[in-house]
């Protein structure tokens, strides 16, 4: 699967849950939302090889 977050991209060959994937890219689930094929998914969802996943940051400031 291909995971994008901000300007970075990661590729994982094995199936992972959303929670496992976020741990791999070192991001707290509370600071992001995860979108697969245009749909939001929860931390327990299984991501499969071939999925295109976008991690959306939610923390803004100023």
């Amino acid at each position: 699967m291909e995971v994008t977050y901000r300007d970075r991209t990661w590729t994982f060959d094995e199936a992972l849950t959303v929670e496992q994937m976020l741990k791999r890219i070192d991001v707290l689930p509370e600071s992001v939302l995860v979108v697969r094929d245009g749909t939001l998914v929860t931390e327990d969802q299984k991501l499969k090889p071939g999925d295109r996943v976008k991690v959306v940051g939610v923390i803004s400031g100023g």
Partner: protein
Amino acid sequence: MRCRTCGAPAIINMRHHKLSLCAAHFPDWVVKHTAKAIRKYRMFKPEDRILVAVSGGKDSLALWDVLLALGYHADGLYIDLGIDVGGGYSTRSRETTITFQESQPRTKLHIISIPNVYGESLAALAKRKRRTDRPCSLCGVIKRHEMNRIAMAEGYNVLATGHNLDDEAAILFANVLHWQIGYLRRQGPVLPADGEGLARKVKPFCRFYERETAAYVLVKGIDYIYEECPFAVGATSIRHKETLTRMEHASPGTKLQFYVNFLRAKKEGLLSSHDRARPDLRMCPQCGQPTTAETLCRFCRLWN
């Protein structure tokens, strides 16, 4: 994970509420809980005229959408600060706001261009005032002044901002770190219009996590400006939010308890004193808006 209401696949899990909801029921939950916050904190009534401060970001656009869904008379105000770094940030955020407003017939969008009205962009002003390291504080002064000016001039009695729980918890955290008693006294979901020439300020999203407002716009398909304001990169408020988010991860509900228990303690007398929450106000001799300053208000001093 399944939606607690209908059993369909959930799109969001809110650990602090022990609640998962699907794409159909989550927006309804946001609308219902916004209405609940408006009632709980007595923010405004159906007959009030509300001006929503919109930036093109997720929170303000979600707030405008929800207030319209609830049937309120809510118009928008976009303040263009002329931020042209970061690939035309102000231009893109203004266009995003206009696109949203065009999808909402019966609403009005007021647009104020700071460079056109006052002759300088935020960047130019920060340079002249030697505040290039902290332009966010100047941005706050300008926005507060202009929001109140337009609300008064256009006959809106309520000014609504999209501040969410993460914003409020980070502000509270900073105010406690520095023991800013005056700011702590004034912090809350409502700042009453207790002076002539002031609009009532409300924060209907103050109990929603930032993650929830982001999920709302994504589920509703509302286009918003995703990137951070180029001047906010590295801002202290973001560092405070990250600290609180790590605490939230270890202990769900930390931010909500921090903020809600602060409001409760204030209601029970914490920080109460003989002083009023808002200090004595005078009228600025230049712009006519209320100010605590002895001479010109802080906004007018920026341009002199």
